């Protein structure tokens, strides 16, 4: 089966081509079958390989040829099939399949149906290249590819320039990160003489820790990760990216693309392990992003914005985990988050669908009666993300807390505070949407309906995963045996040999669990009393709110800040260069030199008319003619 791995990215690529080229000819049914079928086919192969790996098959590199070789810079077209890449493939194609299926219902009335699915398949192809490629160039091919698909899908409804602005912003901010990624790859090539993982990692494993060059490489790569995975300072594109269709937010901006930064770090784990300074930076950036995302999410009233900032925050959790060297923990949270956040986004989509496009949670309320399946599955997602046992988020979040606690008590405290804020904003949203009385218009009320089964089946499947997904990596404390960590061990082996980590005592772990659960329950109570007992609805005007509230609801004024320090200066510089330098300095110098020559020559009366160009031209033409004749005869 491993030898057939090249089919995995090929299926969605073919699906893309069929739907892109045949979008006028194919019926919606056919488009759906091609789009969903291609992803499902990839999933089946990936699952087969996964079973082989579990059965003890060794990791393998499939070499499909050489792309180019320029002066020792050689790029192979090869796929790396190992536990990490197969795991990512399962997430991408598995969750991807259900999101494709859900989209069939969600997009059924859209004119751009085939266009939508062609973009989605192209995305899956790119994402698969990102995780399956066996060198940094193929990773970059996928990395840029997913960014471009994200651009297409955020701006899917292109008639509205607000969507296009969001799409452009996402692309440009990602490209800022890519400057880091690219220069990191340059430095990898210069340092190791190769960009193939096998060579780079084996050479790196023989290096001592703390080399400046490795620190630089990893910092540069991490800059790339902050763009793609929406971390400080490059996270502001992700909330805007909610302009795209909601299933896109679930697939790209929650479950898969935004986790590419985590994947990249785990893939390059040996490099990062050898760069303690970078690891420290990642940890702090992760904690800060987790806290900031949660802080902003508390006051958002757009259901998708709440989830978007939640994603920013949850990605911060993952970076904290890899930052303290707990790579498998980071992957664990990546998986559980993919389950419950995809679920929450799709649930939100179902709500938005039922509410005729309404996204403001202040105009919702009491939807549990009309949307029973959405309600119950959303509840599963809520319990998973706030991390109540035995839902999936509990296990992964708790493992992060335990690892951070070993690293620094202060950071662990900040993480607990973040957990509590998360619980609060999630319950706030949940109560405002599904409980209380309906606050929308009469028209919206009359249209309320549960989504069709093509949309609810994915919700149910993801709900099951969100509930039970945590059991893939139950710690010894809870009588498990870290199955995921053992599965990933071959990929992390070089790092594990260097990072000596002492498992916290069982008593400590129980204590941390208790604190996290207690904090979550307190926040549940607070949200319950505020939004259910007192039926509080956030005010339309924020004027009477406190400074802290406005700081949160205005997203920390970070967009305004970036406008001030980057966008406006760039516009200003561009205008000055154009109006002053180009037109009035460089061009004028050229023109005056020209005029000087013309004037000088007319004074000298060597050229009676002053038409220098004419004379020069005649001269050249004359010489040409003479030489030509000379040659001909």
């Amino acid at each position, binding site marked *: 089966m491993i030898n057939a791995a090249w089919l995995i990215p090929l299926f969605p690529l073919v699906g893309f081509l069929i739907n892109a080229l045949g979008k006028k000819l194919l019926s919606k049914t056919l488009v759906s079958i091609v789009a969903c079928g291609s992803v499902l086919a990839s999933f089946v192969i990936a699952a087969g390989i996964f079973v082989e790996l579990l059965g003890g098959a060794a990791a393998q590199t499939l070499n499909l040829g050489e792309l180019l070789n320029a002066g020792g810079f050689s790029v192979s077209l090869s796929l790396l099939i190992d536990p990490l890449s197969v795991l990512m493939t399962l997430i991408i194609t598995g969750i991807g399949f259900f999101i494709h299926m859900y989209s069939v219902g969600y997009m059924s009335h859209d004119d751009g149906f085939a266009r939508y699915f062609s973009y989605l398949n192209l995305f899956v192809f790119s994402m698969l290249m990102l995780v399956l490629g066996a060198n940094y160039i193929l990773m970059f091919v996928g990395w*840029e590819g997913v960014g471009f698909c994200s651009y297409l899908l955020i701006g899917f409804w292109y008639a509205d320039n607000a969507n296009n602005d969001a799409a452009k912003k996402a692309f440009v901010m990602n490209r800022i990160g890519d400057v880091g990624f690219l*220069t990191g790859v340059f*430095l990898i090539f210069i340092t190791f003489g190769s960009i193939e993982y096998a060579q780079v990692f084996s050479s790196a494993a023989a290096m001592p820790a703390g080399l400046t060059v490795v620190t630089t490489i990893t910092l540069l790569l991490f800059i790339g990760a902050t763009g793609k995975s929406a971390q400080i300072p490059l996270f502001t594109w992700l909330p805007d990216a909610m302009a795209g269709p909601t299933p896109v937010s679930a697939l790209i901006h929650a479950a898969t693309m935004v986790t590419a930064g985590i994947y990249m770090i785990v893939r390059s784990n040996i490099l990062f392990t050898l760069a303690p300074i970078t690891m420290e930076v990642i940890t702090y950036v992760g904690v800060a992003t987790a806290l900031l995302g949660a802080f902003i999410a508390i006051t958002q009233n757009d259901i998708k914005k709440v989830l978007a900032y939640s994603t920013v925050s949850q990605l911060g959790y993952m970076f904290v985990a890899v930052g303290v060297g707990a790579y498998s923990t980071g992957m664990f949270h990546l998986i559980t988050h993919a389950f419950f956040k995809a679920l929450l986004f799709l649930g939100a989509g179902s709500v938005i669908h039922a509410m005729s496009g309404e996204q403001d949670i202040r105009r919702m309320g009491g939807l549990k009666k009309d949307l029973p399946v959405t309600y119950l599955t959303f509840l599963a997602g809520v319990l998973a993300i706030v991390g109540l046992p035995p839902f999936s988020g509990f296990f992964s979040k708790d493992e992060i807390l335990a690892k951070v606690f070993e690293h620094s008590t202060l950071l662990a405290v900040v993480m607990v505070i973040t957990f509590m804020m998360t619980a609060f904003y999630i319950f706030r949203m949940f109560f405002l949407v599904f409980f209380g009385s309906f606050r929308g218009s009469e028209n919206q009320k009359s249209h309320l309906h549960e989504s069709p089964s093509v949309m609810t089946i994915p919700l149910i499947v993801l709900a099951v995963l969100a509930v039970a997904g945590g059991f893939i990596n139950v710690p010894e404390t809870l009588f498990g045996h870290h199955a995921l960590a053992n599965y990933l061990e071959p990929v992390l082996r070089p790092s594990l040999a260097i990072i000596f980590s002492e498992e916290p005592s069982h008593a400590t772990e129980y204590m941390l669990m208790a604190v996290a659960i207690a904090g979550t329950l307190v926040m549940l109570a607070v949200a319950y009393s505020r939004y259910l007992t007192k039926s509080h609805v956030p005010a339309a005007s924020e004027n009477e709110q406190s400074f802290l509230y406005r700081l949160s609801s205005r997203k920390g004024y970070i967009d305004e800040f970036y406008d001030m320090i980057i966008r406006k200066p760039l516009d200003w510089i561009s205008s000055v260069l154009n109006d002053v330098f180009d037109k009035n300095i460089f061009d004028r110098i050229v023109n005056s030199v*020209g005029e000087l020559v013309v004037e000088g020559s007319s004074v000298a009366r060597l050229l009676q008319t002053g038409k220098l160009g004419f004379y020069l031209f005649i001269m050249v033409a004359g010489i*040409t003619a003479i030489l030509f004749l000379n040659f001909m005869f």
Partner: protein
Amino acid sequence: MITIALLGLPALAALFLLISRSAMAKQIALVATIAELVIAVVAAVQFAQNSSVQFLAEYGWIPSLGIDFKVGMDGISLLLVLLTAFLMPFIVYVSFKKKYDNQAAFYALLLLAQTGLIGVFTSLNGFLFYFFWEVVLIPVYFLAILWGGERRVAVTFKFFIYTVLGSFFMLLGFIYLYLQTPGGSFDITALQSLQLSRETQGWIFWAFFIAFAIKMPIFPFHTWQPDTYAESPVSVTMLLSALMVKMAVYGAFRWLLPVTPLAVEDWGNVVIILSVTGIIYASCIAIVQKNLRRLVAYASIAHVGLMAAGTFAFNSQGLQGAMFQMLSHGIGAVALFYVIELIYEKTGTMEIASLGGIMSKAPRLATIFLIFILSTVAMPLTNGFWGEFLLLLGVYKYSAVLGTISTLTIVLGAVYMLRMYQASVLGKASAATQNFEDITFQETLILSVLVVVIFWMGVQPGIFIDVAKPAIETMLSTATQTVLN
């Protein structure tokens, strides 16, 4: 013989048009350029992949002055000849709908320019190279001044004077080199085997560099370019941006780097700093351009700046990147100007602010336009990616600081290109685009040829890299030997 055929065919076709004044001028021109492409492909098939000069043809011309008519192709020449032959049919066809006066002359001049270009890319004699270099200019001058836009006279005049001034320095350089050769020769092997002092090389370097810098153009010698691109007939804009720019980069490859390696070592940093400054400078200016052609003109200055930087970084990745990017940029320039022309045909404007909403009216054109833009912003799997990647790596190897600054081009490029795409294609339809009709099947087919090549080169870059690799590596190792001695 094949080189002579490549040179002769367009010239003969041009001569025929001028004499016959045929009413079928444009069709004849198109057939001639396609026939030329067939010959070029035959040459490519017969080409043996090594560093030697093949398809050599040599005749005495002015023996007393050491001027021979000596032409031939190594991998570098072959790729540029192929590029010229591949793009010329588009350059001819794009003007088919224009109601030009004196069509026979118009197409004859285009064909003459093609002969000139092939001559530049195949000359193995310094004087012959200079001769063809100027020959190209003559038809282009007439084309621009007779069939250009409103401000054509002033603009073309400036362009002409500027480039002729530049080539004058090159001529001086060649004459000086000629005088140094034992017995007096312009032959490439004689010039390349000269043992010049470091100081002399410096003078020669700058004499050639000025000619190339104006032609490319490298900042701050670029001010003729945006006006000329905006005012010229579309075929000429394409000729200039897609092919004539490459004459300068090629000139550096063939006549500058191998002849003055010591000067490259001494002065390369100045050139690279100028080039990198130009990348950022032109990218910033592109952001605020209001006219489609002018925007692409500044984008082009930025791209050429990177090519120059990679060339003068003088390492394997830089040179091979420049080689590959010459092809990508040529194709991209024709592609973008073609689309702009189609938009202009349908709306009568190139002002970005007057456009918008084309996507909803003409999805085919909008999609193809986006693919061309992807190539320009170096998206992987398009040809633009590999050239830019290798160039940036080459510059980064030369200097991490300059390499990092150059890499900002991927951000700025995205800013100006996506801004242009959004304002002109996305959003709601404007007054000008209200009745915009999508491109015809035939037009789609023509542009699809470019699309296919963009992806082909993006997916199998090795095929193209390998053609010029032996020649570039040989040049590099010879020059490195000289520097080490």
